[in-house]
């Protein structure tokens, strides 16, 4: 059961079975998927760690699959988040069209991700990478007509990324003669400098597309917004991590033996930091909750990229820690946003507000989510951010610290906006009848929220698998213990006592405030807030969420207008237009075609010396 092929077969076959079930017995489709996903989580957990679990020869290439600690970390992210998402999907997706299609694509993308993290050669990595790409593409275009353009953009960027990886593979194969990891890791050092540089840049570009690193991020906001929220949790939480997985692999396994390594890392670190900075700005001005979270996601991934790129033990530990954290909190936030959508039918922050009374559990999830994102103790985001700052300072990247700290602080702006617009403020008339979401949707959200608390109190629980994964990436010796935060307490057990105190105090205070506040709250009407002598009319929009950060927007608007997205769109349009002119070669006149033939012959004859080296 717990063989690697078992996991693959179960995942992919379940996708097909779910599709067929939808068309035969739709009643058991959801529970079937949930049970299967549960089994898969268990299987992934139990799968023994061994570099070569399955290998066979396909089309002259040796395909090898194995479970490494590094892969296992990512596989667990995928499996657990997948399980939560599918649990959530049962109610969330109910009544939507094309559910067979949804579940099939869902399972396929999960299976694709397993393939990526378990593969021990580039061919199978690419194979599953592409499966993941097209199945997630199917989910991006799942909803409606307006998703089609976004989907196409996603696919084109994914294709650019995938083909960069492919080109790198071609270069590697032509100089090493094998694409197995073992051979690639060993043979890379023997390649000449330019091939090495080319391979590294191409791989980073390819993986960077999936991790939405600027300037290749433009597909992300739209794609994250338009996918059904239950999948967006996976999309942002797990799928984007495949890019991180690849970047880690490129930097520390493939390119580990090369000389140009430091400055590539330096550039990458800056790209990550700038990604974080700009994404934060864009997030601040987003009016759609999911777009906001998408930009936030891009920004957070920027931190992770920076962490990986710095390449000190502590920074890698921070990056991997943040990777897991990001999966958890972005999963939570997207699920919470999905819950809002489930009840109100929109994720537009200017239209929904004051849901705190109606949806307390969702609010709690969202609150935990934003606390984790902003890195405030006692939740788990804190440890990750701390380690990242510390590693940057330790390795003398002071400017980077400034940039990252700035964007991290600016993140408060959008996080506050998120929670304020959706949950606080005045209640809207339209949302009067809104209720809390069903339990099956609440459970995954709350469990994830609990996870942030647990990992916050005892980060050691998570740092153990992280440092195990780092052992695979390279011999970094001591890792997180080097942090100021941790060397006093060693590992998780001692951390507990200290963190417990903070945690308990926090919880008690929260409860007291909640109970006290709940009693003394009073229903606020529109007039309460806004009447300064004037009585607003019914239809006057007094919600704060509109033009929330107008002053900032006025200050930064002109900078943000010049987005790369526009450049890409213009390039695309120009290219398409020129292709359109090109097809005028086919004039429709038979004689013209005949003329081409004669001309072709004449050219070959006249330029024979040029073409064949023989004068006619």
């Amino acid at each position, binding site marked *: 059961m717990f063989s690697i092929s078992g996991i693959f077969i179960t995942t992919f076959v379940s996708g097909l079975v779910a599709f067929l079930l939808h068309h035969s017995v739709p009643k058991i489709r959801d529970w079937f998927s949930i049970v299967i996903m549960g089994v898969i989580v268990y299987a992934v957990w139990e799968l023994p760690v061994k570099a070569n679990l399955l290998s066979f020869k396909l089309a002259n290439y040796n395909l090898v699959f194995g479970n490494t600690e590094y892969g296992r970390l990512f596989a667990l992210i995928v499996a657990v988040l997948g399980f939560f998402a599918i649990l959530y999907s049962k109610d969330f997706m109910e009544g939507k069209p094309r559910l067979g299609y949804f579940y099939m694509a869902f399972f396929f993308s999960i299976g694709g991700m397993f393939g990526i993290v378990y593969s021990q050669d580039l061919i199978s990595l690419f194979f599953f990478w592409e499966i993941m790409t097209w199945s997630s593409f199917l989910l991006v275009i799942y909803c409606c007509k307006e998703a089609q353009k976004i989907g196409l953009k996603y696919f084109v960027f994914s294709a650019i990324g995938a083909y960069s990886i492919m080109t790198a593979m*071609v270069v590697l194969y*032509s100089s090493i003669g094998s694409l197995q990891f073992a051979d690639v890791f060993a043979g890379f050092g023997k390649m000449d400098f330019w091939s090495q540089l080319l391979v590294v840049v191409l791989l980073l570009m390819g993986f960077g597309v999936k991790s939405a690193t600027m300037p290749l991020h433009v597909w992300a906001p739209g794609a994250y917004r338009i996918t059904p929220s239950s999948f967006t949790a996976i999309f942002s939480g797990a799928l984007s991590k495949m890019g991180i997985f690849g970047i880690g692999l490129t930097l520390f396994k493939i390119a580990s033996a090369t000389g140009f390594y430091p400055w590539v890392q330096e550039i990458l670190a800056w790209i990550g930091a700038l990604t974080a900075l700009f994404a934060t700005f864009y997030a601040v001005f987003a009016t759609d909750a999911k777009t906001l979270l998408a930009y936030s996601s891009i920004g957070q991934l920027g931190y992770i990229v920076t962490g990986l790129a710095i390449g000190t033990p502590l920074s890698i530990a921070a990056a991997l820690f943040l990777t897991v954290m990001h999966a958890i909190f972005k999963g939570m936030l997207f699920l919470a946003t999905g819950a809002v959508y489930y009840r109100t039918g929109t994720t537009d922050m200017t239209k929904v507000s004051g849901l705190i009374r109606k949806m307390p559990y969702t609010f709690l999830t969202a609150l935990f989510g934003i606390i984790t994102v902003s890195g405030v103790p006692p939740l788990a985001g804190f440890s990750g951010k701390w380690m990242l700052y510390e590693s940057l300072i330790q390795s003398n990247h002071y400017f980077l610290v400034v940039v990252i700290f700035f964007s991290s602080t600016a993140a408060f702006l959008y996080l506050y906006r998120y929670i304020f617009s959706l949950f606080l403020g005045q209640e809207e008339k339209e949302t009067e009848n809104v209720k809390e979401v069903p339990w099956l949707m609440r459970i995954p959200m709350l469990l994830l929220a609990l996870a942030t608390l647990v990992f916050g109190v005892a980060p050691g629980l998570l740092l153990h698998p992280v440092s195990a994964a780092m052992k695979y990436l390279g011999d970094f010796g001591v890792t997180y213990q080097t942090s100021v935060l941790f060397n006093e307490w060693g590992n998780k057990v001692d951390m507990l006592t200290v963190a417990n105190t903070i945690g308990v105090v926090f919880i008690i205070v929260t409860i007291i405030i909640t109970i006290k506040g709940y009693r003394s709250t009073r229903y606020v009407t529109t007039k309460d807030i806004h009447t300064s002598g004037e009585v607003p009319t019914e239809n006057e929009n007094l919600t704060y969420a509109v033009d929330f950060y107008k002053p900032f927007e006025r200050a930064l608007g002109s900078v943000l207008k010049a987005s790369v997205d526009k450049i890409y769109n213009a390039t695309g349009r120009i290219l398409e237009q020129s292709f359109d002119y090109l097809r005028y070669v086919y004039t429709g006149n038979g*004689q013209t075609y005949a003329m081409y033939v004669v001309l072709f*012959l004449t050219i070959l004859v006249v330029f024979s010396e040029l073409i064949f080296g023989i004068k006619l």
Partner: protein
Amino acid sequence: MNLTPVQFVAIPLFAAFLIPIVAKISKEAVKYIPGIVFLYLAYVAFTLFPKALEKPIVEIIAGFKPPFGIVLYFGPTAAFLVSMVMVVGFVIWLYSFKFIIREPSEKYYMLFMMLITGATGIMLTGDVFNLFVFFEITAIAAYSLTAFLRDKDGAEAAFKYLLIGSFSSTFFLLAIALIYSNTHTLNMADLAVKMQNVDVTTKLFILILFISGLGIESELFPLNGWAPDAYSQAPTPVAAVFAGIVVKASLYALLRLVFLMFNWSEVFYLLLVLGVITMLVGEMSAMRQHQIKRMLAFSSIGQMGLIVIAFSIATVPSLQAGFFQMVNHVLIKSLLFFSAGYLVFHSGSKDISALDGLGKEKPITSFFFAFGALAILGLPPFSGFWGKMFILMAAGNSHLLLVVVLILISGIIEAVYYLRVISRLYFYKETTKEVRRTPVSGLVAMGILTVLIIILGLYPNTILAYLKPAANDLLHRTEYINAVLGQIHL
């Protein structure tokens, strides 16, 4: 009955003449003849295949020994191509079973059988003039089939095809005249030996004539003006025949001649450049097409460019990749044409914009189209993935990184226009009219192709073992020469 390669030519020819006679008796019976022919010949092909792998089968026609008489050479390459033609021919027949409407079916099947005669003849013959004859048989059948629907556009397309096709045959015949005047032989193996003594200028001129002549039918840019019109106006199964059989046969003829007589690196370089240009122009022109079949036609041109690239790299892995991509293209493009045929038929318009919402009206056919589109983009786990991968790896091994990049760019262009069609099929209109059915024979035909695509995608080894001998057979002419002429040198 003794199984010999000559049956591949003789039986379809016989069937072609049998069909009008049988039609006098029973119109229904005619429909089954091609199916039986294909099944039988597929059986023959698969039986002879292992023998051809051991030692190429050389069959002498009418007792004249080579180089004087005509020989049929059934080596691994021919065996592979003929098997492919038979399988695809069978599927196309299955699809045509219910598709041919209005026109009498015996005419269609007669022309179809003639075309198969010509195509297999091209693949088998060892005589260059015989090659020309088969070439013309194929071409005339193809012109007629293009205009088969008797409509306005069909006639226009067929006339253009004929106009360009005549140039093709003229060049071919001129080349033969030059060859004969210089070597006094027409046997291809003998030619390969004797051409070495011909002075370089003449040889070059012959080569140019061959490239221009056969390049027309192989859809090389700028010689492919006929292709988009013919593909889009011919009846749907015929478009699949063009993509799957006619073009592949003439490309094979070109390659065989080049590998036998003009084994210069410059030739392959020229072909490589032509392949790249063809691929790019094909894909770029397909981008903004308004008609679905015309789009598929341009996509076909692009794919042919890719295949030419693979062959012109001229190493064993690249030839292998080229053959694999040939199979891919035959299977996938047939699937796309088949499904597009019914989509066009039911939407009542050839325009892509008329396809909105057909995914609900014709779920299975639309699914096949979407499947084919994903497959031709080279996404795993479909067979297109391996074809592209092999070609890229082969190009990489020959240090043609620019070609690799261009292939991948054209892949992105391809993705854009195919995915747009899928979007239209499924997501542009949510209302459902009643579900309309596609005839069972059509669905079975598409189902077979789908299964083959999946099998090749998941387990490409199925045919890879046969491709290596085929590649060797095409690449190394000595074996060919020995197999044909060895008998008289005894």
